[in-house]
């Protein structure tokens, strides 16, 4: 899948500030956002069972989303054994970290723009203004 670089995204923001091309659909899904957020603070990864509990997903749902993320190169899945029991470990890849950080940037920008546009006219002007595009 083709993806815009940071410089391209910045250029796009100037020409079409509300296009939000960086809101990659692969991240912009509730379950996958939960999976990536859970993995973001775990450099050594999380087991499938723990991830399922953290995200409140069924085995089938989690497997499906994990597969999508793995195929996109955003997470790595290591299958092994813990003692005699099979153990699946999910871990964010370097590419996944960088792309998730880019996605968070765009998401933040969406919120800041929304706050700016919907700000009531009589709002307190001393309140901290959101950063603009």
């Amino acid at each position, binding site marked *: 899948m083709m993806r815009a670089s940071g410089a391209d995204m910045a250029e796009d923001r100037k020409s079409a500030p509300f296009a939000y091309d960086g809101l990659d659909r692969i991240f912009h899904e509730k379950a996958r956002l939960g999976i990536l957020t859970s993995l973001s*603070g775990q450099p050594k990864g999380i087991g499938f069972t723990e991830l399922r509990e953290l995200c409140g997903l069924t085995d089938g749902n989690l497997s499906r989303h994990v597969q999508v993320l793995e195929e996109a190169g955003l997470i790595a899945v290591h299958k092994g054994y813990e003692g005699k029991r099979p153990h699946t470990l999910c871990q964010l890849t370097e590419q996944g*970290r960088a792309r998730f950080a*880019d996605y*968070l940037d765009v998401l933040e920008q969406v919120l800041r723009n929304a706050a700016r546009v919907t700000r009531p006219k009589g709002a307190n002007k001393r309140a901290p203004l959101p950063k603009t595009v």
Partner: protein
Amino acid sequence: MHDVETALSDIERIRDQLAATTRFRGFTPSIAATTGLLALALAAVQSAQPGLTGDTRLYFVAWILLAIISGCLIGADAVIRARALHRGMAESMINTTLRQFIPAGAAGAVSALVLLGRAPEAAWLLPGLWQLLIALGIFAGLSNLPRRMIWAAGCYFLCGSMTLALNSAMTAPSPWAMGIPFGFGQLLVAAILHDAGKRCGHG
């Protein structure tokens, strides 16, 4: 507005979480190697001109200046590279890295000021102490550095301990007590960074 602010603070928290567990890619092998070579060059100049090491303060002033130059080179390069590579996470990662290294740097500066100003007869402690502090700084930053950087930290720790033990028997500080540990220590750091860069496909 409240929901938006909550969402923005959630994003900030996730980004910090991501930054705290992401490898900092701001350090470059070429700059680390340059600082190592500068240390070896200074040791060579000082040992070729014994007059320079006769005066303890002059000896240490030269090393302090080199440390400042090296710190500025590494810092400026790291900030520029981190902003280019880590983009949204850059500020958070730079702050995390600073928090890890500043205590060791501050301790090194304070120990130099106190020992050279108040107890110059104990200044022989400084080379070993500085090496130990660099080791502690690297140990503190290991979670955001390549895993093999533990070897560089161990090397600095071992050199610091040995320098402290050997320097106690010397009447004048040896240029190589600084040059060898910092020169080869930084070259080892450069080799580890180079290897880590190759492994993840970044320069």
